[in-house]
């Protein structure tokens, strides 16, 4: 091909004009159709200009090919009829069989070369009317084959009536030099290469136009999970606000720390098997393991009879109930351990700000908005003389970091906080107030038995990590976010989390 292209370009360079590419093909010894590909390609590169030349000629049909040597059907029929007495029709058919016989007899009769003699008795006989004929049809066919032009009327008759010849059209080209004519084609490059740079050919290299409408190739990469990206931002907000993270890496907890220490009575509905995963293995945490005996008795007593200014719940507190193991229903179980530690650490009480974000478990049916496990975000401040105003202040600080600047608070009930407040935020996007979390001050019945000083208060709040994440990313089914049914393409396409920027 390259040779053909070079030959063409050289011929054009020598002749300036190639009047007909058909001649060029002949001189190059190739079929014209082969040359057409080269012409088109050079034309697209604007190296040559090709003008169409339309061609027309007649060629023989398959039927006519035989007549070229054997003579036209009418000549064959004439020659088969002996001079003189002639021949019967049946005999003639036997001598010139098939279509040639039928057509030839009809033509010869029309030309008045033959006649039908019915004068004698018996069958009519075909007899010659002339002595000799000239086979004009055969001659015309020979002319077509020889490329000679036919008289128009005869050509049409042969093509249309007798279908012995057919028209044929084709194109060749008149070739002249194009604006980018050169003896050798320069192929435009698609990319800048090391070779071009080392040889310096990039300076003269032509570059193919770049398709700017397509997207680029995605980089090979891993991705972080959307919910955990949000978790990372929450962690930053907390630590920037001076909060210390609690060790929440312990899902198995005793009822004592999950409920009793929080002054949650043993008949509370949350302690129902319907709401909480109780464990058969390990089934219990013996009270003598890890809980100080005096503290345990203070907890029992505050449930049963009160104390520290409380009347208590007035029921018979069961040790066995407090020993039952469960999967923690809230990270506040961890807070209660941490607060106890804070009250009883060497050197005595010191103020603390704690946070955690970790899994909690509820024995619920899984649906679009509920999972049996989810992440709880929790923050608490433990210091002397804290007030409800401090809680409102710290909540405003925290939620404004999340972009929720307009808050209001609703009285609520929670067994271990008093006062308790539900946190609502006004969503400008949705045009309504939405509940965004829960908060309160831990009850004295929880704090005083731990040994925290009288003037120490604890303000705390909590929310789920999943809900704000679902709102943030427009996810309406929690299973699309957390669990094995997550869509990997969602994870891959998820943008970075801007909370706390």
């Amino acid at each position, binding site marked *: 091909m390259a040779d053909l292209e070079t030959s063409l370009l050289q011929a054009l360079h020598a002749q300036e004009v190639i009047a007909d590419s058909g001649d060029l093909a002949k001189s190059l010894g190739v079929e014209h159709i082969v040359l057409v590909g080269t012409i088109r390609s050079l034309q697209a590169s604007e190296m040559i200009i090709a003008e169409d030349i339309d061609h027309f000629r007649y060629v023989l049909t398959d039927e006519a090919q035989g007549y070229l040597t054997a003579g036209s059907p009418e000549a064959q029929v004439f020659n088969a009829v002996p001079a003189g007495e002639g021949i019967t029709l049946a005999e003639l058919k036997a001598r010139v069989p098939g279509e040639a016989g039928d057509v030839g007899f009809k033509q010869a009769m029309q030309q008045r070369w033959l006649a039908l003699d019915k004068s004698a008795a018996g069958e009519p006989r075909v007899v010659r009317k002339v002595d000799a004929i000239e086979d004009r049809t055969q001659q015309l066919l020979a002319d077509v084959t020889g490329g000679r032009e036919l008289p128009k009327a005869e050509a049409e008759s042969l093509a249309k009536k007798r279908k012995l010849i057919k028209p044929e059209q084709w194109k060749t080209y008149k070739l002249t030099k194009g604006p980018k004519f050169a003896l050798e084609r320069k192929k435009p490059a698609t990319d800048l290469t090391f070779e071009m740079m080392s040889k310096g050919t990039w300076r003269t290299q032509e570059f193919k136009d770049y398709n700017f409408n397509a997207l680029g190739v995605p980089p090979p990469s*891993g991705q*972080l*999970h959307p919910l*955990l990206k949000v978790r990372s931002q929450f*962690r930053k907000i907390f*630590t920037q*606000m*001076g*909060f*210390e*993270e609690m*060790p*929440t*890496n*312990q*899902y*198995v*907890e*005793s009822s004592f720390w999950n409920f009793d220490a929080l002054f949650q009575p043993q*008949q509370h*509905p949350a302690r129902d*098997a319907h709401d909480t*995963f109780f*464990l*058969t*293995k*390990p089934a219990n945490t013996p009270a003598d393991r*890890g809980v100080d005996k005096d503290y345990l008795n203070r907890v029992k007593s505050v449930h049963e009879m009160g104390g520290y*200014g409380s009347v*208590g*719940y007035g029921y018979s507190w069961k040790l066995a109930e407090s020993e039952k193991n469960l*999967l923690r229903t809230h990270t506040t179980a961890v807070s209660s*351990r941490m607060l106890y530690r804070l009250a009883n650490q060497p050197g005595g009480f010191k103020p*603390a*700000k704690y946070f955690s974000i970790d899994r909690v478990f509820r*024995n619920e*049916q899984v649906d679009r908005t509920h999972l049996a*496990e989810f992440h709880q975000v929790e923050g608490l*401040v433990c210091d002397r003389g*804290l*007030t*409800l*105003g*401090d809680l*409102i*202040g*710290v909540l405003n600080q925290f939620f404004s970091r999340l972009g929720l600047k307009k808050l209001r608070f609703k*009285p*609520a*009930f929670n067994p271990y906080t*008093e*006062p308790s407040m539900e946190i609502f935020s006004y969503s400008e996007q949705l045009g309504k107030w939405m509940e965004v979390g829960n908060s309160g001050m831990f009850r*004295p*019945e929880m704090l005083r038995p731990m040994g925290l000083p009288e003037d120490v208060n604890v*303000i705390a709040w909590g929310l789920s990590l999943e809900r704000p994440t679902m709102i943030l990313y427009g996810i309406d089914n929690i299973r699309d976010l957390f*669990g*094995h049914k*997550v869509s*990997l393409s969602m*994870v891959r396409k998820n943008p970075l989390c801007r909370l706390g920027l």
Partner: protein
Amino acid sequence: MPTVGVNRDKLFEKLGKVYTDEEFDHLCFEYGIELDDVTSEKEMLRKELASTVAKGGDSKLAAEAAAASEEVIYKIDIPANRYDMLCVEGIARALNIFRGTQSSPQYNLADMTGKQPLQMVVKPETALVRPFVVCAVLRGIKFDPARYNSFIDLQDKLHQNLCRQRTLVAIGTHDLSTIQGPFTYEALPPEEIKFVPLKQTREFNAKELMQFYLENDQKLKKFVPIIHSSVVYPVLYDANRVVLSLPPIINGAHSAITLDTQDVFIECTATDLTKAKVVLNTVVTMFAEYASTPFTVEPVEVVDALGNRTLYPDLSYRSLTLTTDYVNSLLGLQLPGEEIVKLLTKMQVAAELGPDGKELLVQVPPTRSDILHACDVAEDVAIAHGYNNIPKRIPPTTTQGRELPLNQLTELLRAEIAMSGFTEVLTWALVSHAENFEFMRRPDDGITAVEIGNPATADFEVCRSSLLSSALKTLAANKDNALPIKLFEVSDAIVLDPSKSVGARNERRLVAVFCAKDSGFEVIHGLLNRVMEVLGVPYKEDPAAAGSPVTYHWSPSADPAMFPGRQAAIFTGDTQVGLFGIVHPEVLAAFEVPYPVSALELNLEPFVFNQFYESLLEPLST
């Protein structure tokens, strides 16, 4: 949180004011209750009907819906400790007092001078099954259909909440004119208790009645187990051996209250006396507003098995002393004593200021069983003052922010693994037993996994002791993704550990899987090497490892979850900390993963150390 449905117009009638939904919603918000839904009986039935359409509809329901009232019903969420707001009477009373349009009623016992109160005599056998009973009488009640329904609904709501589905307390109410004291509270073998129960026309003995309810009554059958296995059943009789009730299941038909009932006898039997008293107080204080002498209740004398006599209900007001300083310092306010007294009045709590102007002598009414401590009084002050009127302050507490080292390392490592081309997933800690063991071809040795006793679904039978099953589930759920799929997760596995006080511990682990047409074993091996590289832990055989206090190495292993000959255990020192290899095809088949998978699971906790190789693990409990 209980939800109470009240007729809106009846409520507004009691409030003496018509609110828009928005206005009422706002009032609820201020008080700490919540207008959850605005509906009607007709609409509720219509919704129920719509849900049955798929099943061919319910013609009875359709007829009910057509005939149902279109009157607007407010569904109101009530805080779980405000039993005095579980009926329209209580809600209206609380809101009226809050708005200052009504003063708190004084709840009284009827003056019984010269009269012998009705008696309830408790037999010792009741201690075997349901030891307590408390009673009261409401005289001259005027019922109408709305009040009657509210009376029944309140008992229902109490049974569902405070009474814990009748296990702790059960309420029986009776038309006093049909029965005669003294009454007895007994416990008898079920065959000996014979009566016509409510809604039935023939006599049953208690044993056959339990069977009857188990077989025929959807509502009552769930209460049968409370006494079913007891040798004796609790029962209340009147002086003529008429059965009042078989608590906590059903009342007798004989003493049923009707719209015409005027004198109502109320008994609450219980396993918890404190709650029985609260329940009785709630019923009588709410409905005493319809008594001939409003807010006055006739007491009943309960004679316990030891012969001790106690008058019920106990409508005494509990005294509580606190100071204005306490209230103000808890709330961050500087309210004068008079203002605090005024605010408490709005919350049905009467208070008096002591001579020093600082002491607050508070009278807690019998309706407010939720007030246990001075902090509850302070909260009432805050609600009446308005939470949103409390000035905010930033706590002065200065502390240092700090991440848990284990979690900080997790954050750092997650980013590194994502940089290595793996996509992070986040899966559940709860799995089925089969997913943790059988699917993994790992036998349950009984000392590995934490087991749940009462899972709501079979998907959550154990806590995963390995993260790999969750990663395989994720692969199975994402089969249509282009290969290779590279996933990782850094989460906690949970394992039994008798050395821990709770008997189990979390273990922070990394799991990574590579899934393609070929196993990609070398990819996972390479990830292990990379993870160790970023952890700064050299391979034992590496010359650079000389002198490093921590190194790692691997050696061929035989874990049943992995393909034989294509797996290795990972060690640091002599301790195995992980495993990598090609996952066994039978494991993949069990999880329905059609392609080969290579996996790595690694315990990260041995690598939680600082630059001096000091461990930074800080367990919550020992």
